[in-house]
């Protein structure tokens, strides 16, 4: 059994392309071409050259000595926070902008929640000189002003999503509607391993550079490619998909997925989709999502704007359903405490998303000889105001 995608575009029973006919030509064009384009030597060359010289890859695999000592195990941090634009998001946008160019598209649209994917998209559009329109919920625009300014400075147009709950899921709806209205010249750069097939697979393949590097770096440092545990936070799940990718079918490696419990699983203010969600359709994909009994999609909550998505990528829904991955839900308080701890033990201020992953060490005991690799998916600069407010700094 493989935990990777099958030829129909499904991970187990999850995935597929539940899209209106209006989107069929766009998605079908991508489906028929993405693997072919990605396999072209010139594509790989350009992709890897940009990852190296523009993004700054490979990102270090850093042995966190003081953190390891505290939790009496061997902790390595995969430093995606050191990438250009401050997170793993750029791995995907570099890949997709090159894809868009080869498909002959001259207009890029994207959705963003906290603004990280919007910034990563605006960045690659500036790099390539391509028009960029980013949809962002009206409420998120108000609470993420610095990232809105970044996108504007990079030349992108930020369009407020005024429908529904005016947050990430609605920004995604608006981007999809834009694509319906502009089927020929536009490519939609989705920011996570969500959406209709082939998006979850394509985004996972662009993020897979993370686990490819982990294998090489771990071999060098520990003499083995295989850690005992991989830990990553999951909103839509793109940094997690990249971390797990080359280990999915290697069951010697344990996988831990960390979701945002918000104020607590049962508080009504949570984003722990695996626990609270049911099977359904969101943004063209069959997956687990938070919804009412009547099938209306509900609004999740987390202190981390990158984790409050009501669904989860179909790869992760399958990892949950099959038990391949262990899912742990971390509250706002636990995450903030872990973020402060890393700052003071290692001199690294993590993004609040990554702080959720770090909080696992208070939840789960590892053996002293265990090798644990955690994806530090983003840096905390964007979250400074949140940390200031929370800790009254």
């Amino acid at each position: 059994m493989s935990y990777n995608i099958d030829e129909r575009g499904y991970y187990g029973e999850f995935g597929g392309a539940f899209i209106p006919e209006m989107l069929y030509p766009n998605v079908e064009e991508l489906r028929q071409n993405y693997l072919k384009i990605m396999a072209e030597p010139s594509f790989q060359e350009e992709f890897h050259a940009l990852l190296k010289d523009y993004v700054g890859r490979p990102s270090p695999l850093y042995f966190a000595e003081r953190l390891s000592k505290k939790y009496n195990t061997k902790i390595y941090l995969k430093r995606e926070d050191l990438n250009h634009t401050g997170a793993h998001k750029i791995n995907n946008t570099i890949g997709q902008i090159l894809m868009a160019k080869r498909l002959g598209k001259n207009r890029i649209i994207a959705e963003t929640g906290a603004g990280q994917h919007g910034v990563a998209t605006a960045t690659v559009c500036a790099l390539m000189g391509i028009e960029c329109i980013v949809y962002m919920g009206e409420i998120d625009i108000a609470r993420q002003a610095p990232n809105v300014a970044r996108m504007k400075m990079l030349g992108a147009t930020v369009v407020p999503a005024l429908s529904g709950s005016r947050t990430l899921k609605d920004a995604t709806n608006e981007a999809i509607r834009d694509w319906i209205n502009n089927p020929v010249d536009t490519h939609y750069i989705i920011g996570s391993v969500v959406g209709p097939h082939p998006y979850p697979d394509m985004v996972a393949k662009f993020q897979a550079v993370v686990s490819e590097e982990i294998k090489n770096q771990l071999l060098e440092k520990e003499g083995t490619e295989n850690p005992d545990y991989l830990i990553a936070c999951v909103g839509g799940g793109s940094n997690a998909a990249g971390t797990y990718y080359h280990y999915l079918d290697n069951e010697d490696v344990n996988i831990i997925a960390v979701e945002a419990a918000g104020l607590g699983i049962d508080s009504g203010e949570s984003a722990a989709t695996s626990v609270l969600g049911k099977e359904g359709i969101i943004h063209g994909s069959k997956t687990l999502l938070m919804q009412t009994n009547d099938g209306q999609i509900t609004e999740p909550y987390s202190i981390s704007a990158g984790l409050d998505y009501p669904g989860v990528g179909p790869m992760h829904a399958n990892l949950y359903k099959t038990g391949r991955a262990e899912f742990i839900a971390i509250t706002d308080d636990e995450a903030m405490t872990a973020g402060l701890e890393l700052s003071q033990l290692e001199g690294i201020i993590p993004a609040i998303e990554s702080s959720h992953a770090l909080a696992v060490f208070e939840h789960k005991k590892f053996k002293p000889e265990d090798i644990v690799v955690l994806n530090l998916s983003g840096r905390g600069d964007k979250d400074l105001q949140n940390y200031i407010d929370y800790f009254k700094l």
Partner: protein
Amino acid sequence: MNRINKKLQEDKKLLSIYFTAGYPNVDDTVSIIQNLEKSGVDMIEIGLPFSDPLADGPTIQTSSTQALKNGMTTELLFEQLKGIRQSVSIPLIIMGYFNPMLQYGVEDFCKKCQKVGIDGLIIPDLPVDVYNDYYKTTFEKHDLINVFLITPQTSDERVRYIDSVSDGFIYMVSSASTTGAKVGFGNEQTKYFERIANMNLNNAQIVGFGISNNDTFTQATKYAKGAIIGSAFVKYVTNNNLKSIPDFVDDILKSK
């Protein structure tokens, strides 16, 4: 024979109207349906509101959000439609997104549809292949016609394929757009209408999106069997009493 197929045999151009169930008020469903039939409408699409209607523009989004706020649910809609066949005889179609149907249970949903007298379903985000592989037999068992969409971007080959799996009519989306986004037809639409008309498909075509008045209705039905009005009607009931629905319909059909 299903009411939709019977209606399609009539020697006239058909007017179908979409409305969002539960809007403007939660209990308006039956009254809107009765008023539409009384006004001479040939077919009705009852919109089952969804929180995230991907293919819809602002008008239907807003009406859906309001309908859900008003307390509309799948169960309540079936409750409201319980006695509808005692007073209404034209074809009734439920148009909605797949997730609420999935949560209700597709089999139960179809069963309830048949029970209250629904004739067909339009589910924009249920792909043709998934329907064929998993749900076709269930729909057919309950005498429900599933209506598929085509757009100006749909290739001839795919139009033929969709024609081959359709029963009743094909929903012809007039332009690459969400609902209510564009008003009126240009050169591109005329070419598309002609292309499809010349394909001599097995199933009739009914045009939707971009139709809001007599002029656009006439243009669309020059090539197709009928036309569907959605956003323009939703706007109308937002601003007018339900009793004046016949005025809206008269305006559409006036010089026919």
